[in-house]
């Protein structure tokens, strides 16, 4: 075991799970429309789309956001960032600051409402050309960006 692998991971901002739940609700809308259409067309008894929708809602709005939130985390040290994610398929990525080409902080409208942001690290590698860390408080993302930026001496070749 190496020190890096035993360091406790920092949890993401709790609003991130709320954002994922809202995204789950949005994903339900087309399913809801399909269910209503089936009910109106009276092709099948009402409980068939009803139960399917209830299961989809449980998975998309409650189960998956919870699992995702729990599986994600990060650890920042003085020369590298470690990003862990994945419910079924785990990925544990480490990017040394000295290899960061440039940095982005992104927010979509939903994320802006909850004051969270995504920090994106771009590297020159073909694999993991950009590593995304979502669900950071916006201020925190900016602070991290500045800290990492201080390590990036030049932005490109």
């Amino acid at each position, binding site marked *: 075991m190496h020190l890096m692998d035993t360091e406790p991971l920092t949890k993401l901002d709790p609003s991130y799970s709320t954002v994922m739940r809202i995204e789950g609700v949005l994903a339900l809308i087309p399913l809801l429309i399909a269910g209503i259409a089936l009910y109106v067309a009276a092709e099948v008894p009402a409980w068939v789309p009803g139960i399917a929708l209830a299961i989809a809602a449980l998975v998309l709005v409650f189960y998956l956001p919870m699992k995702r939130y729990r599986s994600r985390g990060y650890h920042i040290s003085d020369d590298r960032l470690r990003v862990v994610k994945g419910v079924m398929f785990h990925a544990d990525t480490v990017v*040394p600051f000295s290899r960061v080409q440039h940095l982005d902080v992104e927010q979509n409208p939903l994320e802006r409402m909850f004051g969270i942001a995504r920090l994106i690290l771009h590297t020159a590698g073909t*694999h993991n050309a950009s590593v995304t860390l979502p669900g950071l408080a916006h201020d925190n993302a900016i602070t991290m960006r500045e800290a990492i930026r201080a390590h990036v001496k030049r932005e490109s070749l």
Partner: protein
Amino acid sequence: MHEWLRVNPLSMAVQMLRTLGSAIVPAAFVIFGAGTQDSEKFAEIAPWIIPVLVVIIGVNLLGAWLGWVRLRYRVGEADVRVEQGILSRQARSVPYERIQDVSLEQKLIPRLLGLVEVKFETGAGGKEELKLSYVSEAEGEKLRETVRALVEGETAAPAVAAAGEAGEPAAEPTGETLFAMDTRRLFVFGLFNFSLVVFAVLIGALQQFEFLLPFDLWDYLADLFRQDTIAQAGDALAGYTLVAQIAAIAYAVVAVVVVGMASGVVRTFVQDWQFRLDRTAKGFRRRRGLLTRTDVVMPVHRVQALVLKTGIIRRRFGWYGLSFISLAQDAGSANHDVAPFAKMEEIAPIAREAGFTLPGESADWHRASADYYFDRAVLQALVPGAAAMAAIVLGYTLVGLLLAALAGVLVVGEYFLWRFVRHALDPQQVMSRVGWLAPRWQIANRVKLHSVEIAQGPLARRRGYCTLRFGLAGGRLSFRGLSLDDARAMRAAVLDSIAAVDFAHLPR
């Protein structure tokens, strides 16, 4: 040399020959087809052929001339500029700091006319590179030297100063030849490059140009079958004795092998004719090609990793191929071959020049997790194994045995992969060996890696193995089925090397 210049006027001739070639060959086919099918109609068309050809040539000539007049370039103080376009103008400027290298390429026709195409490589990859077609060979060489000197001055002043002491900073020393292939070597290489692609090309060409033939190909083939020509041949074969049958089959096999080898030899001669790799002050310079002669310079600092390959048969004779993984992966993987067919003792010095050491048996090689290959073997053998059992139960014993044999082969294959797929770490490099019968080695510089990832699927998590992936510029480097502890140890070691050197301070 800051004034605007035009490219060589002979480029017009190249342009014309190329467009005419693509216009006239189909036209000739059409005329030939019309002429043989219906002579009355042909007599009607005949007087028009010459004027139409004159118009086609005239339009081409005008286009080529306009293209030439409207194309100009300038090697300025801070950038190279090219302006082109007959109606819509395009002006492109590439600053010297962004030019990675200048390469020269000669296709067949420009080569006959003594012209080269100059490419300014920026690492943007592919289509967006700045190109100048065509200038004379001498002008191309001069352009390359000038731009290179300017690029050097821009990014690495000390290097120029050091070269300046020798008296002539612009003229590139010819350098020593690291590797070259003579005709004999090419021929042997060609034999190993066995390829049956010629049959595919023939069939494809037949489909493409079928409409130009004066008879209907498929009707002809159908007739051939209907006339029982082939059936007769089959009957004749059936009538032979066993020895004669075997001889006939052997003859067919030999014929296919000979055609395959011949096409391999031709392909190799066309691609690697007069292959030569030199070590110059700037890096590795490679020249090769019969019809299209290319002249590429790969700076040493841009080499990210080495790939060493061999084949099932060529390995028995000690032949290997070496290529570089380079920062700009612009023109496909074949572009970075530095010694496509060489003995190990020829490859080692090239690797050394690039700053790598080839791993020997003494390297600290590790195997992947046995659990990983066990799981793979079970998963692969599952379907054929189950099918075999079902077949035997249902009474199709022969089919069942064949399926069981297939499952067995898959399991044995995984066993050998477990035995032969390895990875190793030395103070400067990460090394991998994949494949069993035709192994392939990858050797990457630890400092030139960009990120490290440990990935696990659901099965891998339960069984305690993982995939270790490194971010490598211009290529991929991953290790499958490593035990978690092994992967973590490698990750920690490599990250410590990476973090110690900043990207901007990488050897350039």
